[in-house]
């Protein structure tokens, strides 16, 4: 698949997209020429598993899949000794609407991810890793398979890697079209060959995960940061971002901007800068109305709320979330009801059906919005949406309930007047 829109200018020092200009970076020879696999060599030959974990903890690397959980801490929850095998699951499901960053890493720089997988597995004592990749990314999966074969051929995977006695096999596992399988416990169920129904937690995957064994689940971008942390050290990485949220993020910008695409920028870059400096602002004649800052599940920000740092804590502070750092730009000409309709349709379609509030609530919300859209909205419909969405939030096994509820709540609250003007006896 073409990945033509990696706009990488304006950025000084990048961690993940540094050599994206190189057309054949996905070939191991080209990757090795750029200093590739040195981090693996250093980690396996000069560092201890605990030493690696400490470095990752100190680097302040927070999960890039959405929840922002500190990676080093997650690894440390896995029991050191276990009579069962331990597993790594790499989350490459990339289903959050607006998100396309992992596709760029997998397509342009698969060996960076493979290095991250090797180092993480060595640190936690894992000998088998599965990369769960969304089914539509068939071409991307093939590229990753090829990169894995090259790495194995050079002795970076398989038995006794670099003659250290450390073994690791990595398998690619394609999903088959289900957003919920990006949720980590649904991913485990799916990988075990079942429907993607999230599990009750606790027990957490760190102790009871894949095939009932201790398991680490990390996003592609999270793991792709590990080689740089090992090579350049935690202080260097932390310094790129903020005190509790180190490194860079790959921001994916979509919607009517001049240059949609991915931008690797320091954690904490302002949303205004991302939209106006990097993505070139809105297309001529368009005016900013609102932004969804972290994938569809993130509560919406109005045009006057974009002077905000893009990091987990800053966005949580204004009631939204950084999520997958997918920035969806919405222009004045787009009715909010249309946005709401897309949001409602998505969650109604993707609810896995296991928990009643989510299954019934999302389709009920969708029905009301379809009615509003057809011009038959009734007085009180907006309040009813708020009531329904509030009754999903916090009442489901997995965070999909919140993901379905929060964007509806934020749209209904922040754009109440516009939405009410669509109702039959509205004032508009």
């Amino acid at each position, binding site marked *: 698949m073409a990945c033509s829109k990696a706009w990488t200018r304006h950025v000084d020092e990048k961690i993940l997209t540094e050599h994206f200009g190189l057309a054949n970076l996905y070939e191991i020879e080209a990757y090795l020429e750029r200093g590739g696999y040195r981090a693996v060599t250093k980690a396996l030959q000069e560092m201890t598993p605990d030493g690696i974990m400490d470095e990752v903890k100190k680097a302040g690397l927070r999960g890039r899949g959405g929840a922002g959980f500190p990676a080093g801490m997650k690894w440390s929850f896995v029991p050191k000794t276990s009579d069962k095998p331990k597993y790594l699951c790499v989350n490459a499901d990339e289903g959050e*609407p607006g998100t*396309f960053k992992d596709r760029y890493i997998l397509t342009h720089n698969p060996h960076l991810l493979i290095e991250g997988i090797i180092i993480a597995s060595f640190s936690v004592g894992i000998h088998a890793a599965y990369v769960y990749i969304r089914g539509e990314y068939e071409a991307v999966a093939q590229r990753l398979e090829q990169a894995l074969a090259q790495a194995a051929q050079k002795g970076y995977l398989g038995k006794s890697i670099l003659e250290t006695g450390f073994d690791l096999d990595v398998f690619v596992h394609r999903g*088959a079209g289900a957003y919920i399988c990006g949720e980590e416990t649904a991913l485990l169920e799916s990988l075990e060959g079942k429907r993607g129904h999230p599990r009750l937690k606790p027990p957490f995957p760190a102790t009871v995960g894949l095939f009932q064994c201790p398991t680490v689940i990390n996003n592609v971008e999270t793991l792709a940061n590990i080689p740089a942390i090992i090579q350049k050290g935690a202080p260097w990485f932390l310094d790129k971002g903020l005190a509790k949220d180190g490194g860079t993020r790959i921001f994916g910008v979509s919607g009517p901007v001049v240059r949609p695409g991915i931008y690797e920028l320091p954690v904490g870059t302002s949303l205004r800068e991302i939209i106006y400096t990097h993505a070139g602002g809105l297309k001529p004649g368009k005016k900013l109305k609102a932004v969804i800052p972290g994938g*569809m599940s993130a509560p919406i920000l109005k045009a006057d709320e974009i002077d905000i740092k893009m990091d987990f804590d800053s966005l949580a502070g204004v009631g939204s979330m950084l999520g997958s750092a997918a920035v*969806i730009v919405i222009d004045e000409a787009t009715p909010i009801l249309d946005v709401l309709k897309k949001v409602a349709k998505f969650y109604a379609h993707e609810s896995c059906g296991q928990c009643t509030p989510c299954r019934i609530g999302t389709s009920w919300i969708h029905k009301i919005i379809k009615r509003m859209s057809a011009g038959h909205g009734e007085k009180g419909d907006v309040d009813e949406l708020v009531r329904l969405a509030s009754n999903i939030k916090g009442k489901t096994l997995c965070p999909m309930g919140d993901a379905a509820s929060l964007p509806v709540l934020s749209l209904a609250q922040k754009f109440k007047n516009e939405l009410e003007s669509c109702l039959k006896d509205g004032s508009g």
Partner: protein
Amino acid sequence: MIAGLSSELKKKIAEVVARYPKKEAAILPVLHLIQRETGAIGADEERWVAGLLEIRPIKVREVVTFYTMYHQKPVGRFHIQVCSNLPCSLMGGEKVIDHLQRRLGIKIGETTPDQRFTLSEVECLGACEQAPCMMINFDYYGDLTPEKIDGLLKGLD
């Protein structure tokens, strides 16, 4: 159909099954491989997979009906999956869908009488920088306009 699985495919399936400590875990990749050859997962395929993975056929049915990428009936030779999610619709996705329906003479969810095209509406395909986008079989096409679509359709044989 199932009796005719090529020996090459059977070898591939055996390789895939060996990647997992439990056979059942191979169901998604095995179904992908079979569907590629048979076009759909019908009752015969379900039973065959159930036998292979040593699970009950209902388990296979659960999986086939849960995941949108498996078809119980074959789709057309060109399966067009067009995104109707937010980033694409902000960039004119609705127009693209209307145009496809008019050009192909079918509605979303339908197949042309000659079995050439099936048109499906899908959620985000993960290519929002190229919105509006769609897939034709496993190939992605982005920055779609009615003209570009006409050119693409003409180029298919």
